């Protein structure tokens, strides 16, 4: 990718704010906004002792797997929701997840495609409601994605 490294965390903050907007919109939605079946989502929880024992590659793969799971889950939610205001939030969230992948590429973080089936994937939960899914989405961006970006090697070199 010819992109310059995107080290500016305001970009992620911007996506987090939009993810929060989607969560708020979902909470106030009354009709046509349910999830048809439960979905696999990444665990958002961070124990710093555990996180720091992982090497950079493991951390990156965990984040990429999570982003991929969220994409799958939001795509499913998109098909089961009929409320048009929510469609725009969900579409936007999916596009933002693609943009986050692009940001990771810009930081030379090796691309990782998780196995086609989420069955048996470590570090996952099930979300059974749309609000749970969108809450996981926000917390995953705030937590693990932010940690990976704020610690990215490609952004440490400007220390002169």
């Amino acid at each position: 990718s010819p992109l310059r490294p995107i080290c500016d965390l305001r970009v992620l903050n911007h996506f987090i704010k939009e993810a929060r907007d989607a969560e708020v919109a979902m909470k106030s939605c009354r009709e046509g906004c349910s999830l048809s079946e439960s979905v696999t989502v990444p665990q958002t929880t961070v124990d710093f002792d555990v996180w720091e024992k992982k090497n950079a590659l493991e951390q990156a793969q965990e984040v990429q797997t999570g982003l991929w799971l969220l994409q799958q889950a939001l795509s499913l939610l998109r098909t089961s929701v009929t409320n048009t205001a929510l469609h725009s939030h969900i579409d936007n969230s999916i596009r933002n997840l693609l943009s986050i992948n692009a940001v990771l590429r810009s930081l030379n973080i090796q691309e990782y495609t998780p196995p086609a089936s989420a069955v048996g994937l470590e570090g996952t939960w099930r979300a059974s409601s749309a609000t749970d899914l969108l809450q996981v989405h926000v917390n995953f961006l705030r937590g693990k994605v932010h940690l990976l970006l704020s610690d990215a090697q490609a952004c440490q070199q400007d220390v002169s």
Partner: protein
Amino acid sequence: ARDFEKKASKLLQEEPENPKCFAGGRKDFTCFWEEDEERAGSLDQYSFTYNYQNENSSRCPLRIVPAAGGKRLFVCHLNRTQMFVQMDIQVHREEMLIHNRSLFIELVFLLDPPGNVTVSSTGQQGQLSVGWVPPPLKYMEDSMMYEVIYAPVDRHVGQVEVARASSELILRGLQSGTKYKVQVRVKLDGMSYNGYWSAWSDPVFMET
């Protein structure tokens, strides 16, 4: 429509590549190119296709906008965009590739000028306080930078101050008892988002 004309004429001056493209907002992306009236074909002869990295290509419907000097602008507008991913654009006339360009949408913002520019006295001699409202680009206000140009009304050459992620600025060292003309323009700051300078806001006049 008036807004598009202004932005188009700005890009016709500043941007050598074709098609010329700008993002007016998160869900507002426009590309266009110019043709001479005599040499231009009909709308159905042209096709505008684009694709994001790793994705299938899509077509953007075109429309024609007449422009000054016997020119025609062929315009494509998208209300969905993908940032930080390379977009490859191809324009064909019949079978022939006439324009070919790759860009990142987040680097070609061209916003409306700041609104509601106000100039007021700070109470201190030789100072004026300038305030404005950032263009509506939700959650990206902290990535904007501004230029404030000011000059005594009877003089032509202005001085410029820069403000970042702020919507006010204090002008200092002004001549007292003088009427000043003040204008503001905006651009994304170049860190992660970038683009062109907006047009200058309408002038506001204030006496020190």
